[in-house]
Every structure is written in C-alpha cells, then in structure tokens.
C-alpha cells in the first residue's frame, strides 16, 4: 500500500497550505479512492495511477488555487482588509500632516514622476505595520502579505481607473497625441508608483515576519 500521506505532503508543500490535519484527510480520501478502484476490478497499477492523478498536474493546481482562495477570503475583512486599510489611512494621514506644515521633503525622481523621499523610506514601515496588525488578528501568511500590499493595490487600482477614464476620453476626442501619451505613461507610471512601493511594503512585511519569529524564539528560550 502506498504511503498516501507522503504523496500528499510531497504534492502540496506549497505556501504551507497543507496542515498535518489536511494532509491526513486528503491521504484518507486517496486511500479510499484507491481501494474503491481496486474493488471495481482495476489492476493495482492502473488504480494507483488514477488515484495519484487526482492530485497531480491540473488537479493539483486547481486544488492549491482553491485552498489559497478559500484561505485568503476567510476572515479577509478582519485579517487582511482592515489592517491594510488602517495602514493606508495612517500613510495618507502622515502625508497630509507633513504637507499641512509646509514641510518640503527631498524629492526622489522616478520613472513616471516624482515622490517625496521620506514617503519611500516609510513604505517598509507601513508594510510591516499592515502585516503585524494582520498577524495580531490571526491572519495567515497569505493574509499578512495581502494586508501589507493593500495600500499599493489601492494605488494601483486608482491608477488603472484613471487610465481607463483617460483612454475613454482620448478615444472620444480621437486625438493621436493624447492616446500615445497615455500609452507611454501606462508603461512608466505603474512600475514607479505601484510595483516599487509594493516591493518596499513587502520588504517591510518580510522584516516584520522575521523579527516576530526571532522575538518569539527568544521569548520561548527565556
């Protein structure tokens, strides 16, 4: 009899979706399925191939995707969206407060435009804050990543919306220069204002993750 737990564990060691309990449950399903096929009169080799086929290739991808989707959506508001929105609000408030005091920060020129240098420096902190708040609410690893990336995701969505509206208006006036200008910007702005902030936020989340683990280890030893 094949070691079903080992087979499941080998196939689903992705993003930590497979807890020991889930591994045992899926292994039990495969075991029953294999025996069912044997009872139907299939040769052992064919039964084994059919059974393993349930968790390989396309089936494996679907199973991983469904579990990731379920995990991400479970308690999404409390564990990812709320920490992410709080982080976005904190970042927005900080930006507004400095602007109100006429503090003119150093400017970092980047593809697609410019943004204050301190804003870039703070991104890892916001990312870490989102991830930590999510962890505090019991968020999974995937939800912690989502929480840290939410500000960038919101920014990205807004930029895309602006582009959609812009393209529509350009189409209405049928002006070649407007359309080509927007196409050019579409290649420049998202990397500068979405992808790079997302990378920095993710860096902060990663640092928070490692720090929390080390802190816990030290506390356990103490």
């Amino acid at each position, binding site marked *: 009899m094949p070691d079903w737990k080992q087979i499941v564990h080998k196939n689903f060691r992705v993003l930590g979706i497979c807890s020991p309990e*889930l591994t045992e*449950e899926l292994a*039990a*399903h495969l075991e029953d399925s294999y025996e*069912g096929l044997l009872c139907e009169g299939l040769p052992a080799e064919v039964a084994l191939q059919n059974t393993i086929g349930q968790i390989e290739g396309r089936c494996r991808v*679907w199973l991983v995707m469904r579990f990731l989707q*379920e995990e991400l959506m*479970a308690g999404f508001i409390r564990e990812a969206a709320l920490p992410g929105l709080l982080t976005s609000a904190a970042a927005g408030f900080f930006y507004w407060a400095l602007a109100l005091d006429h503090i003119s920060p150093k400017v970092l020129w980047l593809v697609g435009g410019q943004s204050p240098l301190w804003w870039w420096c703070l991104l890892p902190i916001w990312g870490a804050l989102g991830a930590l708040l999510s962890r505090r609410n019991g968020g999974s690893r995937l939800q912690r990543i989502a929480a840290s990336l939410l500000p960038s995701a919101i920014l990205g969505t807004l930029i895309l919306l602006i582009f959609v509206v812009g393209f529509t208006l350009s189409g209405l006036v049928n002006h070649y220069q407007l359309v080509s200008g927007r196409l050019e910007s579409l290649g420049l702005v998202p990397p500068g204002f979405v992808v790079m902030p997302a990378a920095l936020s993710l860096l902060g989340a990663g640092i928070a993750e490692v720090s929390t683990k080390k802190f816990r280890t030290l506390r356990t030893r103490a």
Partner: protein
Amino acid sequence: MASVNAQIKRGSAELAVLTLLAEHPLHGYEIAKQIEEQTGGVLRFDMASLYPMLHRLERKSWVKAEWQTLPNGRRRRCYRLTASGRKQIAPLRAQWRAFFQALQSVTGFQNA
C-alpha cells in the same frame, strides 16, 4: 449523459452536501461517492471542489468535522450537520426551486 456547467455545479454543491449530511455524518470520500452514485454520475466532485467547500462550510459553522476511528482502525474526518447548517437547507431549496421555475417559464422544459 449530459454534462453540467461548472458554475451550476458549484452553486448546487452546498445544497447537495448539506442534504446528504442531514441524513447522517459522512467523511469526504463518502460524500463524493454518494453524490456521484445518487446523480448517476452527472454531479461528480473532485478533491479540488469538495475539500475547499467542506472547509468553507465548517468555517461557516454549518457543518462540524470530527476525527473518528473506523472499525478497521483507520481514522477518517467525518462531517456532520450542525443546527445552523440544518436551517440553511430550506432557504437553499427555495432558492433552487425559484431558479428552476424561472428557467422553466423561459425555456418551457418540464420536470428537469
């Protein structure tokens, strides 16, 4: 045998599973097998559809899962319907009935 569109299958899956569990607790493989047998193979749930859905139902507290040791010594995670889950069956049935009646009035098919 006519195949059923994936969206319709997904929507009907919860009702099918809850109805089955209303009779007696079952583990994942038994649920999949019984649905397949009772529908003559029209509804067939693979692992990718079944387990994420069962875990979702568990999170909603519509079903409760417990590990049980079978007479042959094997451990299986059996799902049983909770009181909250039992309450969902009637509204889900009503929704599906309304859906089929609406479809019937448009397409004119009888007793699907």
